[in-house]
């Protein structure tokens, strides 16, 4: 018997995470993401590899989505509403609550701003989400008679989970994205010691080792403070959820402490609404945030207000959170165009930007620089650029720690950059002696699986093996010469001595 892993996305790259695992006729799709860097057919996983006939409902047992980031869920409405998959879908409560916001935000950006043909409509997003079964952490879900899945806390964003799946004696873990160190609003990933045949883990920071996060947070706050103190405007392009809330908690707290009065804006009503969800889902945040919710919910931001388009060129300093992140278009790009030419302003970039986005180009640029937005537009970037060096992904040490802790029989690396993954793969194989793979997209890895032969044991045998009758053994050993070293406990009947 074997486990077959078909990597449809995030193989030796970051984007459109999608792995289809087959265990004893059960086919589970982990994540159904889209690639932000492409606009053609490459943005979706190649679903035709699952089923030639296109009957996905019968070819897949279920879909499991680890968290609400688009590179993990972006293709889901397309897969269910356009490709016609109609089977069960599982995700955690926060993911189910927040995913529609993410998808709708993306759809709007694509249609309203880029004028592109929409991949799926708002109604289709809602239809798709209706098919989703929400699960709680550690809740053991019996998908069907043989397949069991369970979510573990992954810490990456609110509601992110690692998923454990078991069919008979074969068990695997798919980590999704995770973070092994707690941050200001989320805890660290947590998982039980399990007996696993396979772990499929992300490897975004396959070779990076990071030091304390607090120092980096201070750096960020200092940069922002310096900018607003000089009367500049700070643009923080983020996705609506996750990073926005984390940074906002940081700033809100800092504003309070430093008694700053500079306004902090959220770009659309959307993000303010998102805070509402965060308040209800406070049990999925870090212990520290949880402990205080009864007196003051940490997501009741005091210094934050909504942004109005007319404020873009209003005088005076401000901090603005704008979607989407990585400045891949939409409102954040619009504001960026206006603010980038001024030296006093500041743009923060997340630690990771997908290739093809403006954010990615900025990361490698040295200001002042000329950045091509598209074929016709070029802007002078003179503003400061601050790269956020704290990231909700685990570093290499975290990956190794997790693999060591779980000690699976095999490891597959996904969601990373090819050369770095190769290094990590070497390390896992040589340090831990665990066989490790880093398949490219559309490759299949087949690994053997353990299983057990079923037998029936008498109570007497189990009893005597688990709690041996020591008195009896001593008696036997006293008469050891007679018994010739035979183990007399388990053998009733006749013995013959030569």
């Amino acid at each position: 018997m074997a486990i077959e892993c078909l990597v449809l996305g995030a193989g030796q790259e970051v984007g459109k995470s999608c792995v289809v695992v087959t265990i004893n006729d059960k086919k589970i799709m982990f994540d159904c993401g889209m690639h932000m860097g492409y606009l053609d057919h490459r943005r979706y996983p190649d679903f035709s590899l699952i089923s030639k006939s296109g009957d996905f409902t019968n070819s897949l047992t279920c879909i499991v989505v680890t968290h609400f980031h688009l590179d993990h869920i972006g293709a889901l409405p397309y897969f269910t509403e356009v490709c016609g998959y109609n089977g069960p879908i599982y995700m955690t409560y926060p993911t189910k609550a927040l995913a529609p916001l993410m998808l709708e935000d993306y759809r709007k950006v694509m249609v309203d701003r880029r004028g592109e043909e929409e991949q799926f409509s708002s109604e289709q997003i809602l239809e798709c989400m209706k098919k989703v079964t929400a699960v709680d952490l550690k809740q053991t879900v019996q998908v069907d008679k043989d397949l069991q899945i369970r979510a573990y806390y992954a810490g990456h964003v609110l509601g992110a989970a690692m998923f454990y799946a078991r069919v008979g004696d074969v068990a695997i873990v798919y980590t999704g994205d995770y973070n092994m160190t707690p941050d200001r609003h989320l805890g660290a990933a947590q998982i039980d010691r399990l007996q696993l045949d396979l772990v499929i883990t992300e490897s975004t920071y396959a070779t990076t080792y990071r030091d304390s996060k607090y120092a980096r947070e201070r750096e960020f706050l200092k940069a922002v403070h310096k900018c607003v103190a000089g009367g500049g405007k700070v643009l923080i392009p983020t996705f609506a959820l996750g990073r926005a809330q984390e940074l906002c908690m940081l700033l809100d707290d800092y504003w309070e402490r430093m008694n700053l009065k500079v306004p902090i804006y959220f770009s659309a009503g959307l993000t303010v609404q998102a805070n509402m969800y965060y308040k209800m889902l406070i049990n999925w945040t870090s212990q520290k945030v949880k402990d205080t919710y009864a007196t003051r919910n940490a997501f009741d931001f005091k210094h934050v207000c909504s942004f109005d388009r007319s404020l873009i060129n209003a005088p005076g300093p401000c901090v603005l959170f704008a979607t989407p992140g990585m400045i891949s278009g939409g409102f954040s790009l619009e504001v960026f165009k206006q603010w980038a030419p001024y030296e006093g302003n500041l743009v923060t970039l997340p630690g990771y930007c997908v290739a093809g986005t403006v954010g990615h180009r900025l990361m490698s640029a040295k200001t002042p620089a000329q950045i091509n937005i598209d074929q016709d537009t070029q802007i002078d970037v003179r503003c400061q650029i601050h790269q956020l060096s704290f990231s909700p992904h685990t570093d290499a040490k975290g990956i190794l720690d997790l693999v060591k802790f779980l000690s699976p029989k095999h490891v597959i690396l996904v969601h990373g950059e090819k050369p770095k993954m190769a290094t990590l793969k070497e390390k896992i194989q040589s340090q831990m002696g665990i066989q490790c793979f880093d398949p490219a997209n559309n490759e299949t890895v087949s690994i053997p699986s353990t299983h057990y032969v079923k037998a029936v044991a008498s109570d007497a045998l189990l009893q005597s093996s688990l709690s041996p009758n020591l008195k009896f053994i001593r008696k036997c050993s006293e008469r050891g010469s007679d018994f010739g070293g035979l183990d007399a406990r388990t053998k009733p009947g006749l013995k013959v001595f030569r």
Partner: protein
Amino acid sequence: MEFTCLSEGKGFYFPPCYILDICGFRVLFDCPMDLSSLTMFLPVSTDSFTMCNGEITSRSCQKSMDLESNVYKRQKIDKPLDESSLIRSEPRYKIIKNLLLWNVSFIDVVLISSPMGILGLPFLTRNKEFSAKVYATEAAARIGHLMMEDLVTMHKEFRQVYGPEGSGSRQWMKWEELELLPSELKEIALGKDGTELAGWMLLYSAADVKDCIQKIQTLKYAEEAFYNGTLIIKAFASGLEIGTCNWSIICPKGSIAYLSSSVFSSATAMCFDYNSLQRSDVILYTDFTPCNGSNISNDGDNGSATADPNQSIDNVNWEAIADDYQEMEKLDFICSCSMDSVKAGGSVLIPVGRVGIILQLLERIALCLESQNLKVPIYIVSSVAEEMMAFTNVIPEWLSKQRQDRLYSGQPLFNHVELLNDKRIQLFPAIHSLKLLTNWQEPCIVFCPHWSLRLGPVVHLLQRWCRDENSILVMEEGVDASLALLPFSPMKMKVLQCSFLSGIQSQFSRPLLKTLQPRHVLFPEKLRQHIDPSKNLFSSSYYSEGETLNVPNLKENSELDIAVDLASRLQYTTLKQGNINIARLKGELAIEQGKYRLLPGTEQDVSSQIRPVVHLGRINLDALLTELRKIALNITVEETTSADGSYKASLVHVLKPNKATIEITKAQTLISTADKNLASQISETISSILDCF
């Protein structure tokens, strides 16, 4: 496997309590206490000081009362029960007396199925001998924790009146005092059979509660907990209240489901997850709903008409929704009565202890007030009100589908969030808090503990409003109203008694069990009349309080998983007698996740080890003699029996070529000879007629 019913309980607030002996572990189900027996005590009274001639200090007041009371009571033995008959002392709390018969250290696991089932737990956990692992759902533990904290806070008021712990609080427990009690109170104090006096305990402290909560391992619904590797324990939603659960225990011997009071469709709590209890070998049916009073009268008649034994579970769902409407109607009735009172200038007092009901009533009453344009404030007076309100809005995972849908649409789970922001609902920690005194307006609608009407803010508010005929008190059926209201008589205030659905109604029990497909069900003896065993596909037995019942053996043998690499190394030998293949095996026996596993173990190469040959089988004497003669031995046979008949042996004497004796008994065969060659010759012959491996 043994099952003991320690207490059948008394409805929602006092769930039943059991001990199950399974796979050598003792599992205690719930540890409640009987708070309804608090009605025996006199509540703290705002005018209790004036009663003893204006003496201010409570201590002297206490003493003078003690002196007088004996004389006083003796005179009125046969008088009807009135306020003066109630016990004037710091109350004690009644725990389950049968639990006291057990050595606490012998309990291995405690499973808590509802917040009410936790209330007596600190009495156990504060015992130094207590070493059990306690499991409860996260929500039940949290709500239970708040309830206990509230209880401890409310009890402080008694300490203020009666002085520090212990002083005089045992006075009423003396026999001469007990003898003088009116029969109603005597029954509460001593129990029906007069054995329950030992169950009265001084309340635990806040530190005991904290310590107790720390000992609880909290679970999510359907989370697997492994106890000692042997038991797999899982909690599944029971629909009764937020966080309540049924338990599934799987051990290598089979599976057991603990079916507590469950509600099919709940407006707030996550609904009854019966599918997860399917195909258990044994169901412990612990829902006493049909015997708990009013539910029978409501549903008895139409119930029998709709109870079609062949109905599928889909029908059950549908009907359950129908009785959900019934529950809604009850709430609507409470609302309309409240509106009437408020309009007449009276206040509404709702000392209900069910979180789910309170949350629904808050929403509905606020809605009614708004639609009728009444500006009447809603107050919640409790030391834990603030925490409870905050908590209920951050637990979508524990709520019904309708409430979860509010999360998905970005609305708060309960309307009280907005109502609190608008100050239409106000929270006060205590009746004497400054915030209350400065904000108080009447008429008003008040939610507060405690439903026994002996503890907490309710006592003061009742004393204030009991003569106001426009005000209304909402209380639950199941509480002895005449006794509960005794200290407040004459009651002019209206009293609305209502019952809320708190378990499986008898007409749904059969289709439910049909869906669950158990092999055996243990029912309460009290339910026997509701069960028709002839129509059931499972066997059943009946238990009553204080009895221990043997649960039929689930499986003869346990399952054992053998690792494939180990199994492939086995070398089978076919036995001469019968069609049996046998093989020797050596491995490490492990028990993990409720399964026995045989693993190859750490020794490198098991197969290459030299192992002594083992012979198996019984010696057929005739066959042996034939074989021995074949190798040309001269033999005689002799049968011997010892004097007492315990020892029987066949002796085969070999005369030629050398002397030898073969002594054959059931247990062994012994060859004695001085000739080495002969010995091995005989041994081989014997081996040839035996199986060896």
